[in-house]
């Protein structure tokens, strides 16, 4: 025998569980945001005095230097996509896990491995000058923890990684890539 209050509590619980399955796409997922222009500047450099094929080959070389495997490419559209899987263990997390284990809290799940993807697109920067190109590179990654759950699923935005990529590309083609 249960009371009216308990009955309503059960109904509420069932409804909440049912609604939790209603995940919908965020309304602004495909809206151009103000920061997209800054991101474009961060991710793009202009290279001049080189053909599209040459800059694509050099980019493939830089990707290989960085340990990426090339997954897809379409030279007619200037696209190269690469990925690599690496360890994602971070010292800070390991230290925290050890502390919690020592305090009797059991095994804390920590980040274990990640898949990193790089997508490089070369695009003509001018109708007349066939040797001037925009090179835009974008990075993203998925991180799994020791319990095989996804802990991070994100694009990577740190300016340093983009700068380093373009430094390497500039060295490979003996040209300076300048910012837009």
């Amino acid at each position: 025998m249960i009371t009216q209050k308990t009955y309503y509590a059960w109904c509420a619980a069932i409804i909440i569980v049912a609604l939790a399955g209603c995940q919908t796409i965020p309304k602004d997922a495909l809206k151009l945001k103000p920061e997209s222009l800054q991101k474009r500047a961060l991710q793009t450099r202009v290279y001049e005095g080189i053909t599209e094929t040459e800059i694509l080959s050099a980019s493939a070389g830089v990707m290989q230097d960085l340990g990426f495997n090339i997954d897809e490419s379409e030279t007619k559209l200037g696209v190269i996509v690469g990925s690599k899987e690496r360890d994602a263990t971070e010292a800070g997390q390991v230290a925290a896990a050890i502390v919690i284990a020592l305090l009797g809290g059991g095994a804390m799940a920590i980040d274990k491995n990640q898949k990193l993807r790089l997508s490089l697109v070369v695009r003509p920067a001018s109708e007349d000058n066939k040797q001037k190109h925009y090179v835009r590179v974008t990075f993203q990654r998925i991180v799994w923890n020791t319990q095989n759950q996804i802990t991070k699923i994100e694009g990577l935005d740190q300016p340093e990684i983009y700068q380093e990529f373009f430094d390497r590309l500039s060295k490979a083609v003996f040209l300076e890539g300048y910012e837009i």
Partner: protein
Amino acid sequence: MKFTNTAIAICSFAILLSLPGCQTNSSKQLLQTSESQVKMRSIQTRAFDTTDKNKTLRTVIATLQDLGFVVDKADETLGSVSATKLDGYQLRMTVTVRPKGRQQLLVRANAQYNLTAVEDPEIYQDFFSALGKSMFLSAHSVE
């Protein structure tokens, strides 16, 4: 009111089974869509007044990058581009470009948000607005 524990258990079980999303044969997902094909096509397609397929594909790629996507695949002959956006969720999109008559190109996009197909017309409208801006052309609706 008084309810027996068994009655509650049976009612809860019945309600949970009848909730949408509780499929009984998951392989049916292969050919399933919840909206009609015609409706989806009109939501997902726009025509542009240009015949330059290569330039349009490159503009689609640039727009997807501006929207935070990383390009997965591209094929100029097929006229298709696929990309993924990771931002706490996974959003995958494929955009195809093909000729329409002699003076236009037809651009069709379809998106998948985590495990569900995106069927909200506003989302596609946002994409075509962004694409239209990049192309400096208006996106025409297609019936």
